[in-house]
């Protein structure tokens, strides 16, 4: 055990650190990537909104927005202008200061996530050694913003939405983090760039179960549709942002899609090999992978009905949590067996294990049948 660890430490120290070789050094690097990240997030979020609406339309046998601009490409712009021109209403019973701060508190952590996402080898704002841990830490602050919004609105539906948020976020954080640990075991580093460099075989093949768990709990964490309990419009109006309008509502809308983008980028980095790929330039590969992951999210959104709150908790604690523990254990054993890196044989083994486990779980864990006790 300890010899293995020492070996891993050596490996880590030997791995190539990418120096910021920019003219003007530190400050130029900082300015350049800050601008790039903000532009990247805003552009891709617009792309996501268009892509989601069109893809949803296609899947639901309708056209989707196609009137504004060629192919309806200007629809997100029109939406943005509409929402920005609307009146900004603060309810009478609201806690004004907290109501005003909430969108900002929700927005900043999401932007901070992109600081450690590599767009290309070493092309990132900062290559933190604790990359993925930093992402987990920063993204957990976003919940506070949702809480502030829900509480300060002085509205029971907002409050209920915020309460549901904590239930889902706290529960799904556990399988999320446990499935990341599998990736970290394989890559031997927490740095996002090193994780990409370590993926000679994309980790989706070596960690198929981990990918599935991460995808499901990621969707729940950012409240994408099968799990969007905190804004279930048939039950609690619009959840935590019921009382928001105008610019502040636009902020929450932006946060929602920026979180989806962040989650897609993290999945692309951790499991799909990040910027690695043949022929095309690395950043293009990265963006293509982001859109592939986001398409999976749209697909699940349009296919699956919204789960009930008890089903949501049962799925987290009885379904994903044990699976994540088993996945972690199996990965640990495999890393001990093949300390030099997992061979292609492990891909086959892991896929077989995933299929067997999923079949087993679907046997004694049926979600659709009536009320599940929690």
């Amino acid at each position: 055990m300890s010899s293995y660890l020492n070996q891993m430490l050596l490996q880590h120290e030997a791995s190539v650190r990418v120096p910021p070789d920019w003219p003007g050094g530190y400050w130029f690097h900082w300015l350049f990537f800050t601008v790039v990240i903000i532009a990247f997030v805003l552009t891709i979020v617009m792309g996501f909104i268009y892509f989601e609406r069109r893809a949803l339309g296609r899947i639901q046998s309708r056209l989707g927005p196609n009137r504004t601009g060629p192919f309806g490409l200007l629809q997100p712009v029109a939406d943005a202008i509409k929402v920005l021109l609307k009146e900004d209403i603060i309810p009478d019973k609201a806690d004004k200061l907290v109501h005003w701060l909430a969108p900002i508190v929700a927005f900043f952590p999401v932007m901070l996530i992109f600081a450690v996402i590599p767009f290309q080898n070493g092309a990132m704002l900062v290559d933190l050694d604790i990359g993925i841990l930093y992402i987990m830490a920063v993204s957990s602050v976003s919940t506070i913003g949702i809480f502030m919004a829900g509480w300060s609105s002085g509205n029971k539906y907002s409050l209920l939405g915020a309460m549901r948020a904590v239930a889902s976020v706290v529960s799904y954080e556990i399988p999320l983090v446990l499935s990341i640990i599998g990736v970290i075991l394989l890559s031997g580093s927490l740095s996002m760039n090193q994780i990409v460099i370590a993926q000679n075989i994309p980790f989706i093949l070596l960690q198929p179960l981990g990918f599935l768990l991460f995808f499901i709990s990621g969707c729940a964490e950012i409240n994408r549709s099968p799990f969007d309990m905190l804004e279930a419009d048939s039950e609690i109006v619009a959840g935590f942002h019921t009382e928001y309008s105008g610019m502040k509502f636009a902020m929450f809308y932006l946060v929602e899609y920026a979180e989806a983008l962040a989650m897609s980028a993290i999945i692309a980095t951790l499991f799909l090999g990040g910027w690695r790929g043949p022929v095309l330039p690395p950043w293009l590969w990265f963006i293509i992978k982001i859109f592939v992951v986001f398409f999976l999210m749209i697909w699940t959104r349009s296919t699956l009905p919204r789960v009930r709150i008890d089903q949501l908790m049962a799925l987290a604690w009885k379904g994903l949590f044990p699976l994540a523990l088993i996945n972690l254990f199996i990965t640990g054993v495999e890393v001990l067996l093949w300390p030099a890196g997992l061979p292609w044989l492990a891909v086959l083994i892991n896929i077989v294990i995933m299929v067997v486990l999923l079949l087993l779980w679907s046997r004694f864990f049926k979600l659709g049948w009536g009320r599940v006790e929690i």
Partner: protein
Amino acid sequence: MGLAIAFWILAIVAIAGALGVVLLKNVFRAALSLILCLLAVAGLFITLSADFLAAVQILIYVGAISVLIILAIMLTREVTQGSPSGRFRIPAFIVAVLFFAVVAYAMVNTNWQIATAPPLEPTTAALAGKLFGEKGFILPLEIASVLLLAAILGAIVLVREK
């Protein structure tokens, strides 16, 4: 220079946040103030080159514990009026001042040893070696996890419906 500026800003924010927790009438705002204080402490960890500790501080204290505190507050009625001051207001103040005096006295008079070695980089691998490696702290770590598990089981037993 830069570090000193960062330290003073973070220190002032942390103390202002801590004072806010005590002085604000509105319990929800007090909880938000606590979060601000904890974030500032995480920032202080970063200025001390303890990046891992800072991330864990945010993850656990801001992401988990504060969220639970806020959840508890949301279940409370009449949050905006705050808690009415009880009979123990003045004794509690005296005890707090005494405690602060003792801690401040101890901190000022301790001869702190300052390491001359440069901060470790990267910290995670070294931490892992210390925690799980040979002659590390694997036993205390495991005992701590068993303790936490026992606490979780205890909580489940306490709240289970008979």
